[in-house]
């Protein structure tokens, strides 16, 4: 550790990174009477300013420094407010800041002529401010504040078009499963996202306070230095449940199984919002939280935290599988991307989980975080490109697109680049390297069921390549659809979007390829940074955990070890993993190419036999999960509540409640009776009071 920086110098920057977006959000409404340009530019300015501040502390993170500054907050509870910018937080903060800055620039044009721009920019700034708060705060309580802020902002932005116009719905109209409509209005989607997140938040809150009950602190560093609380909780068998409860928050926010359904409906928001949710601010929060607390729990491995990491890995694996299968059949471009996000997040969770199941924590951890970085880049790019297409063809269905590669050449090229990254095209894309790293870490682990995880991971990779090519093929290849022909007949020209829109996603797509080209070295570097960070802060080395006291005593040697390890860890390459990922890309990509780009086989033909038709329906109806959740979580409880209301609450409301009210009013009248306005009475009461008090004292 290069030494902690306090409030001085860069310490202030770390505070400002998350405060500036909030200040910007507070400032935006002042511009309500100004023109659109000014509003947008001010908002972009604030996000850029925050991004540059993040950049200014990047060197600290890369040199394994740490900014940790605290101010007293709730002195009665002995709580401090603070920022903790360690390498993990600094890298994440830069990622969030720069990707959201790109999305902000994109929004200028995408949200052009939108009426409620103030609301839009307010919540966008609020969104990134909350996310940065999650990233940079040094304790769980402040993380939770940011957590709730993110939840609120996502609710407001998903339901941004609250007028619920037909064109803002997602899902096919008229599609119902078990009586539950599968097409959703923006307001409905907003509430749904909010409520599902709330379920996760409650778990997180209870987990947090369980730990607080035993440790008396929310601080990440404080929890690490004094581990007596873990002993106490272990004795009560509460440690793993508390950890899993906190992970429940991450499940909600990152849309993991079983709280994954909101993510798909969240597509009702403006596409820029979807990009922000999927790439930078929302679903990554869950992964970040696991990356934040994972090492802490791993450092407590004497207490056998295996189950926690097992749960993380399996939740990730199930989600990856579940959502990838659904992405295969969905006709809406944004929804395909949404499914893919959930599935890729599943990969990250899998990697972070498997990290805790091996002695070499660092590999899996790095792999998970590397995938987070590459996913953030290409997914933001894909969403913005999809937004550009939506903007042009006025439809969210891929069947209403087709043949667009000629008219929208730039969008085509950059979307293809980002798609290749998502599909994991070998050697040149960041997606390939990060996925490969995850495969390798699963293979290297000595977890007994790691072969099953590996199987799932490879299957998902095949499906990913397939649905990515399907998407590209449906949108850009083949003949123009009826919708486009109609539009052109009406005089609409299908043409490229303007510079302000394509530049942001072009930059991100290119960045993901550039990282891919140097992917191997990039991974090595990241590995090095995390290896030194984990060993100096948590005492986590290649060969397991060493006690923290030794770390502090022998900082120099440990750092040397870390460096040594970085070189060795980077040069290792698991041939099985590489072969698996190349094969997965090859198989999935080839099938996708055959069906949707060359179009030599008509996919509709496959659907003719009963089995594949049944399977298709199963996937298209989302494994019936949405319907099950609605029945269990909404329809049946509401029915029950109606009974309660009728027989119980009604009685309370109209029977008991008024009597409370009337008795209070009566008592109030009595109390006022003496207040007649006569001074004589006042004086009498006054004197009587003295006498009563004297007697009280004498007694």
């Amino acid at each position, binding site marked *: 550790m290069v030494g902690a920086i306090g409030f001085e110098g860069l310490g202030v920057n770390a505070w400002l990174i998350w405060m500036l977006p909030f200040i910007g959000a507070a400032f935006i409404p002042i511009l309500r009477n100004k023109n659109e340009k000014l509003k947008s530019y001010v908002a972009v300015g604030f996000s850029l300013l925050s991004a540059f501040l993040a950049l200014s502390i990047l060197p600290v993170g890369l040199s394994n420094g740490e900014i940790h500054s605290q101010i007293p*907050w*709730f002195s*009665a509870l002995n709580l401090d407010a603070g920022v903790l910018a360690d390498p993990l937080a600094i890298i994440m903060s830069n990622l969030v800041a720069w990707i959201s800055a790109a999305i902000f620039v994109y929004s200028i044009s995408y949200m052009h002529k939108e009426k409620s721009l103030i609301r839009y920019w307010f919540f966008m700034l609020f969104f990134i401010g909350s996310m940065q708060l999650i990233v940079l705060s040094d304790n769980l309580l402040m993380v939770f504040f940011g957590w709730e802020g993110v939840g609120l902002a996502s609710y407001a932005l998903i339901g941004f078009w609250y007028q619920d116009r037909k064109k803002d719905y997602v899902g096919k109209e008229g599609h119902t499963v078990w009586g539950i409509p599968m097409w959703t209005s923006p307001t409905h989607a907003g509430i749904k996202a909010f409520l599902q997140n709330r379920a996760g938040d409650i778990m997180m809150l209870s987990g947090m306070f369980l730990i607080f009950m035993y440790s008396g602190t929310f601080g990440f560093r404080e929890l690490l230095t004094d581990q007596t609380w873990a002993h106490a909780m272990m004795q009560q068998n509460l440690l793993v449940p508390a950890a899993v409860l906190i992970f429940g928050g991450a499940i909600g926010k990152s849309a993991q199984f079983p709280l994954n359904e909101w993510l798909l409906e969240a597509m009702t928001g403006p596409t820029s919002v979807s990009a922000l949710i999927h790439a930078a601010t929302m679903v990554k929060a869950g992964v970040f939280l696991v990356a934040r607390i994972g090492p802490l729990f791993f450092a407590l491995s004497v207490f056998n935290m295996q189950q926690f990491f097992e749960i993380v890995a399996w939740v990730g694996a199930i989600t990856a599988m579940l959502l990838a299968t659904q992405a295969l059949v969905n006709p809406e471009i944004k929804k395909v991307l949404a499914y893919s996000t959930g599935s890729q997040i599943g990969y990250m969770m899998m990697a972070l989980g498997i990290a805790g199941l091996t002695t070499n924590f660092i590999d899996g951890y790095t792999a998970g975080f590397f995938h987070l970085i590459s996913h953030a880049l290409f997914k933001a790019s894909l969403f913005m490109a999809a937004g550009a297409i939506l903007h042009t063809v006025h439809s969210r269905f891929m069947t209403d697109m087709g043949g667009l590669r000629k008219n929208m050449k730039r969008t085509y090229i950059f979307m293809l680049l980002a798609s290749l990254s998502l599909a994991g095209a070998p050697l040149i894309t960041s997606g390939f390297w990060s996925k490969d790293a995850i495969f390798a870490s699963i293979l290297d682990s000595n977890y007994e069921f790691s072969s099953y995880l590996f199987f799932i991971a490879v299957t998902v990779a095949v499906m990913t390549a397939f649905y990515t090519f399907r998407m590209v093929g449906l949108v850009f290849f083949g003949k123009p659809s009826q919708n486009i022909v109609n539009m052109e007949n009406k005089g609409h020209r299908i043409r490229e979007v303007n510079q302000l829109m394509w530049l942001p996603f072009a930059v991100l797509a290119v960045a993901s390829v550039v990282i891919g080209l140097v992917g191997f070295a990039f991974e090595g570097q990241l590995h090095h940074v995390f290896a030194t960070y984990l060993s100096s802060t948590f005492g986590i080395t290649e060969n397991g955990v060493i006690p923290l006291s030794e770390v502090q005593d022998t900082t120099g040697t440990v750092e040397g070890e870390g460096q040594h390890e970085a070189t060795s860890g980077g040069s290792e390459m698991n041939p099985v993993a590489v072969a698996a990922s190349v094969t997965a890309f090859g198989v999935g990509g080839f099938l996708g190419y055959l069906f949707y780009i060359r179009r030599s086989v008509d996919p509709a033909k496959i659907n003719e036999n009963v089995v594949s038709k049944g399977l298709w329906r199963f996937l298209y109806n989302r494994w019936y999960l949405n319907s099950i959740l609605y029945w269990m979580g909404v329809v049946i409880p509401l029915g029950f509540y109606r009974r309660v209301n009728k027989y119980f609450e009604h009685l309370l409301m109209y029977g008991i409640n008024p009597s409370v009210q009337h008795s209070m009013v009566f008592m109030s009248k009595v109390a006022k009776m003496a207040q007649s*306005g006569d001074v004589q009475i006042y004086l009498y009461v006054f004197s009587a009071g003295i006498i009563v008090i004297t007697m009280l004292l004498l007694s």
Partner: protein
Amino acid sequence: MIDIFSTPALVTIILGSVALLIPILDALNKERGSKNKVYSAIAFGALALALAVVISRIFTGENLPALSLTNNGVIADDIFGAFFSIAFLIVSIMVTVSSWSYMKKKSNHAAYYSLILLSSIGMILIGYSTDFVMLLVAWELMSIPTYALAAFSKRDPVSNEAAIKYFLFGALSSAIIILGMGIVYGLTGTTNIYDSVVGMTTLNPDLMPFALLAVALFIAGFGFKMGLVPFHMWLPDTYSGAPTTIATLLAAGTKKAGFAAAIRVIVIGLIALNVHWTITLAIIAIFTMTLGNLGALTQKSIPRILAYSSIAQAGYILIGLAVAPYTNYGLDASLLQILNHAVMKSAAFVAAAAVIITIGAYTIEKYRGLGYRMPITALVLAVALLSLAGVPPLNGFWGKYLIFGSAIDAGDQAWWAPYLAIAGVLNSALSLGYYIWIIRKMYMEEGENRIRQKEPRPIVAVLLFALGFMVLFGIWYGPLLDLASMAVPNDLTHLIAAR
């Protein structure tokens, strides 16, 4: 001998000279009656300067005692006094600035501002007094100008009635305080608070009833200003009848001076008396809270609701005083709530004043639709009411939280203390009944019209300041609590042992 450069002396000189200067300026002024703005500005300047002096003294003055117990002189320069001075000066500043708008159409401005300044001196000196005689002088200096101020709308019979009631009880309570002081002097032969405390410890047991009588008289005398039941009856009539800015001064300022005196004399001064004065305070606290809230519940006029609510608030604050000997932070909590309440209540009264001068509305029915007609006033009033109710994360929450917490904490040594907390929580729930009602009227119901009123700028400035205070110190109350705990001795039980 008083050090001329000590804070109380400096503040007295600043405020006193300006208070005397304003009428002289007025006398020299040829075109009479149009100088409201000038006097308001001068008074504001003097108060702000005094506030700066007090605050800078806290930051620069090394080794200021928390609350000095000394027989050296009649005035002590300590943080306790400074803490109260800050509260008083903030209130006076809010009153002065909002009077800029409120007094625009009235006359006799020179006297008005001069009296406010003189009353402020009195309040501040109460906070600093270490001697009964000094305390009495300061008490009168605070009270007498406010009698005149309460009657300031001299053609308005309500204002006159308010002032007469206030004066009657003020005179009575002064007499009672003097009587109490006389008894203490007779028992101990000194007017110095510290010396009399020392004298009380060696009191002949036969004379104990006299000492207790003195305690009762002090409770009654100071309780009049604090608005404790049963000495509260003048209060609703006066607060709602007096000019609203003056009601602000009374509710937020002089009421707190009563607490300053009560802490100096009753809690600190008589802690040595091994009697159950604490349980007496506890009983009074419960009655005060409950009667205040019940009274407010069915009122129709907003100033009157605020008056009753300030009775209830006095009850909450009194909890901290009652449990002070048994816990470490009872007084800290009370002090925190005193400062918070000063700002919250001022904000609410000033908002009411703004409504009175723009739409001339007093009753709650006329507040319907205010959220649209006067957005800033309504917003700050709503926040102030929520803060008074103790809704987190506003500053009022922390005061209440700590007070109730201290009561529960004191349960180890006083069996009745937790019941105070329970009563307080129940009362807070009850109080929401009328606070939320007002907010509901302002925002949920349609007003008689939807004309947006022009809100007077000075009042808007005062309100925004209060809003910032309530929200900022709600989220981050640490500094205020630190100041409050600096102002009172750490451990009162320790204090007794030292004697």
